[in-house]
């Protein structure tokens, strides 16, 4: 059974997620979030991060189609970088960095509680699909 080292564990809503640290560029507190009309709900808005435009994504919509809280200035966020794309995931709380074990297909932490391990590549592709789909619909 493979062991995952350096995984960041965080909470959004009632769900605990895990993400390998190598995808996380930084943990930030969001600046002013500008909403992007005509964008799908998965895109909570855009932020200024060190002078670059950073899309803020809602992990709940991306994975389950269930929107979480809207992203606001001061919210915590993880800045992800994968597949040549950079985005921020709004989080309620960053718990800690840990090593994880896989058990019967589920990812569990040291206390045996299950976590959802995120695949950032798939997450970003899903986001891109949603954005492109919405853009197509808007014409």
């Amino acid at each position, binding site marked *: 059974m493979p062991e995952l080292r350096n995984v960041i564990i965080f909470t959004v809503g009632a769900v605990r997620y895990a993400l390998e640290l190598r995808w996380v560029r930084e943990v930030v507190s969001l600046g002013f979030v*500008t909403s992007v009309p005509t964008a799908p709900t998965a895109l909570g808005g855009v932020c200024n991060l060190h002078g670059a*435009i950073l899309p803020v994504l809602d992990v709940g919509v991306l994975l389950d189609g269930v929107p979480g809280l809207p992203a606001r200035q001061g919210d915590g966020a993880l800045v992800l970088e994968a597949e040549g794309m950079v985005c921020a995931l709004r989080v309620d709380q960053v718990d800690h960095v840990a090593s994880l074990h896989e058990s019967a297909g589920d990812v569990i932490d040291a206390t045996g509680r299950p976590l959802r391990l995120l695949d950032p590549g798939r997450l970003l592709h899903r*986001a891109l699909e949603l954005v492109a789909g919405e853009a197509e619909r808007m014409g």
Partner: protein
Amino acid sequence: MSGAELDFDAEELAMLRQLFRAEAHDALETVTARVLAGGSARPSAEALTEMMRVTHTLKGAAGTVGLPVMVDLSHRLESALAAVGREPSGWLPATADLLVAVIDALRGYLDHLAEPDTDARAAQIRSQIDRIARPNRRPESQPPAFVEALPEPVLEVAAEGEAGPAPPGPAPWLHVEVGRIDDLMSSAGELLFDRTRIERRVQLLRTLARDLSRTRQTLHDALADDAADEARPGLRATLVDAEAALAGQAALLSQTTAALLDEIEALRRTIGELQRGLTRMRMEPARSLMLHAARTLRGLRRATGATVELRTAGEDTEVDKAVAEHLVDPITQLLRNAVAHGIEPAAVRAAQAKPATATITIRARQDGNSLVLEVGDDGRGIDTGALRRRLVATGRWNAPRAQLANDAEVLEALLETGVSSRGEADELAGRGVGLGVVQQAVARLGGEVTVASAAGKGTTFTLRLPLSTTLAQAMLFKVDGQVYAIPNAHVIDTAHVGAHATSASGGHDTLPVVRLEQLLGHGAAGERRPALVVSFAGKTLVCTVDKIIGAREIIIKPLGPLLAPLTLYAGATISGSGKVQLILDPAQLVRRAYPEAAATALAGLHDRGSSPHVLAGRALVVDDSRAIREAMTSMLGSEGWIVDVAEDGARALQMTRQLRYDLVVTDLEMPALGGFELIARLRGDERSKDTAVVIITSRANPEHRRRARDLGVRALVAKPITRRKLLEALAAR
């Protein structure tokens, strides 16, 4: 000569004068350099000839751009130089100083053309020049005002009409206004948007190719299943053929789209190179910024009596000119702040055994894609304890936060607007004043400010900026509480639109209305709204908004790959307070306003120039004055000529060997290869022996006319050139 005779419109004339000014500064610089090279000694004959040549060129150009007083002044200067050249005794030790003074005065005159006292300035320069020409007379004995008589004879070399071997001059520089490069930059930026649009279409094509393959497969399968059905063999044969053809076409389509995507990738690289190249053109050393800082500090020293010196490092670091211009104010502010609040009084410094002279250091360096500027002082530093108390006292932070925050975070709070600009008359309040301005200016450039401070040791502000920026003019407006921008080049007017109108009348047409409050907001219509009249690719529409903010210079930031499919936006910009503002793409607004014409709108972009213009032929303009080249290009261009330009005879000769010209318009006196020499060479070449040649000159004497006739020159036109004179020359046989 009056402006009306010039046949340029106001804008063109302004542009030409701008060019002329740059050129004149160069010419005058050359004269100064020649004078200074000799100290107070009389310049060599060769140096005098060179000085006369540039002065002469200046005169011709001044006439063409409609500056008669400048014609007079450069004419007088040229004559004075000729007088000095004729009489060895005409050069006094004071002449060098006088010449430099005249040149400086001329430059001053050119820089203040719009001011009311130009006549007085010109009169003064005239009398100065007179003292060069007639050093032994009293300045009162002025000749009457400008007379057009030419001073003959001039130096032999000049009389030959050729300048001889080119004197060693500075490396060739091209004078380009920053604005022009900016225009190119923004065109390159537009290219980027165009590429994104094309890319999206190609992606669609690819999907289409896939769908087509699938359809073919369905057909193929149906035919295979139905193989036994021989009911209608004719139809079946047709379908089988069609299926085969479809397979081939689908494959071709998918290959073509794949190739297109490759080509778009190549285009992307080229656009990137173009932008980088343009950015390099705008780069200048940080030195000028530091010189400006040194001047500011000198002023501050005088004003406050502070004992402080400036140290600089990294003067050669290259900075985008556009960025540098926007850094002047923040740096001034930081210097002011350091002198007023950072540096302790002399007594305090002495008590702490610090050097009596305080030091402010400005360092510039490049770090990856960033420019880093540090402005530091060796003063008292910032008291973070007091700042913590202030943050809590003013209610900005709560006590636990102030407790938990580290010093860096506390210092960062100082940069936020309003922290300590509340009028408290203590040092801390003073430190914060103006820092908000610094923060905003840097944020607007897409950069960041950080501050580090050590008690008793000093404070350093670090400005981290993108190495280059794409600045553009945009119209800012508000919809549903958010600020948006649209490229100002496409905003042609503002208007008011009634609550429910779906079209607005503008000029002769009825214009469609795009209600941005519905597209971008929650669209509670029901009132008259301000609106922007937007024009793109020949289509005009009206966009209603909540509020028009006005035109601003913005930096265009790309939205990144994730947001690229949202074609409504052409990018984003960052406001002074660090908020992201979206830029709307006028092309998409047109698509919404004219859905049926969307396809043709793009095509319409490219047939603007298809006016039924009759081509007169290909002309080559040869003159060492850029202002004259531009003026001639404009005049000939409007007569239907395709115009190329060359800055001297040698270049012109090269060009005529590569391309056949129907007309060559040339100056006589030019570096490298003069006009007559050029014409003689043209006549000696089979390709150009019959080319029509027109000479433009301000030195038309009978000898010149004779030579021109011998060389089969069609006409000789005296500078300043007007459209009428040129047309007559072209009509001559």
